[in-house]
């Protein structure tokens, strides 16, 4: 079943690339076109495989994350990156790295523990920020965009 789904999504991806085909210079079509044909064919093959084995019992994945946990992890990271241009590197990183640390605690939350997580992560973020901007002259997003 998973193979069927994966194959289907890959075919959709290939189609989304295929409709954008628009080449103006010679030979620039060769590699992308060949790749799209090959990937499309392989994905169809995967779908056929998936269809043939659709009734086969899929063993339970012990290591797979529960959807709740996966969603939490991805949402935190995504929110962090969305906040990056608005809050700037320092603020968004302190907020979200501390949030990640706090949500990763398995024991009950106390003010003390939350404060500890906040301090540790703020320290890490500030150290990285200073090292990159002051020593290595790498530009990082500032508060208020740009």
């Amino acid at each position, binding site marked *: 079943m998973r193979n069927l789904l994966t194959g289907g999504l890959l075919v959709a991806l290939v189609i989304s690339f295929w409709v954008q085909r628009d080449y*103006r210079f010679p030979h620039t079509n060769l590699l992308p076109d060949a790749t799209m044909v090959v990937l499309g064919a392989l994905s169809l093959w995967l779908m056929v495989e998936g269809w043939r084995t659709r009734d086969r019992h899929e063993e339970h994945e012990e290591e797979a994350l529960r959807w709740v946990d996966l969603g939490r992890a991805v949402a935190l990271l995504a929110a962090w990156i969305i906040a990056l241009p608005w809050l700037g590197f320092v603020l968004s990183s302190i907020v979200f790295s501390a949030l990640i640390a706090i949500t990763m605690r398995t024991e009950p939350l106390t003010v003390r523990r939350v404060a500890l997580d906040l301090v540790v992560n703020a320290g890490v973020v500030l150290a990285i920020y200073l090292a990159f901007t002051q020593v290595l*002259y*790498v*530009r990082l997003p500032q508060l208020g965009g*740009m």
Partner: protein
Amino acid sequence: MIRPRSLAIALVPALALGLSACGDGGDAAADYPTKRIDYVLPFDPGGESDITARLQQAPLEEELGQGVTISYQPGAGGALGWSELTRSRPDGYTVMGCNIPHIILQPMLRDDAGYETEEIKPVYFFQSTPNALLVPADSEMETVEDFVTAAKENPGAMSVGGSGDFSANHIGTLQFADVAGIEVSYTPFDGTGSAVPALLGGHVDALMSYTPQIEQLGDQVKALAIATEEPMEGLDVPTFKDAGYDVVDGAYRGVCVQEDTPEEIVNKLADVFAAVNEDEELVQDFRDQAFNLENYGPEESVELIESRTDQYEELLSKLGMLDR
């Protein structure tokens, strides 16, 4: 793709003047600069632009009385950086390297390059490297005439390598082929450096490169011609013009700022870069690198861009590369 460019170019300075006249820009512009300036290069480190910027860094800091940091924003042959520039703050603290013909040809030949030529405001063009036609040292060709004869014998068979697409090498090859009435196959390589082994290994017949390479590669190559008005000092190579082909072009390197940057700041920056160009050490280093010193202020730069734009537009529409 052809737009009423000249009108827009004429409007830009007027607009910028208007903006700086109103609002609180006055004081900020008068005190400029009060903090570190970011000198951003839209290319990978290590190229000609990088070397130039590194040479300028110390004298720039001296002239500005502020720190100057050089950073890189490579991608899409510079287009990524220039489109970012159009979205940066018009305060003069982000100064970006910009190259002719890239900033002209990319918007002209791409449906959406992410910026338009007139959206970036030139401050100063300080350096240029003219095109040079190179062949391997053991080639039978001795002059441009030999090259043209060989190309005419077998139309389209000669391959000429160069640095990248829409570069001065590229347009220079097209120009030369057009003027000489020959047909050659231009092959773009990834920068000036990676085109060289293709020539030395005999994988291309000739290379349209830049003049510093003549000295750098020494006796491994023969230079047939250089694309300057006059022969270059200390370089025993004839010009295309000497051979009767009116081909004069090369890459011009300068700096640009966001288009709404107040005129005062632009002029201040231009004065600084002009002063840096007088720095004795820098002049000597430029000479060692076979870089040509150029002095195009803000207005002269606009004129330079305008004249090149017309020239390229004419050539490219003649070659049918703008029909879309």
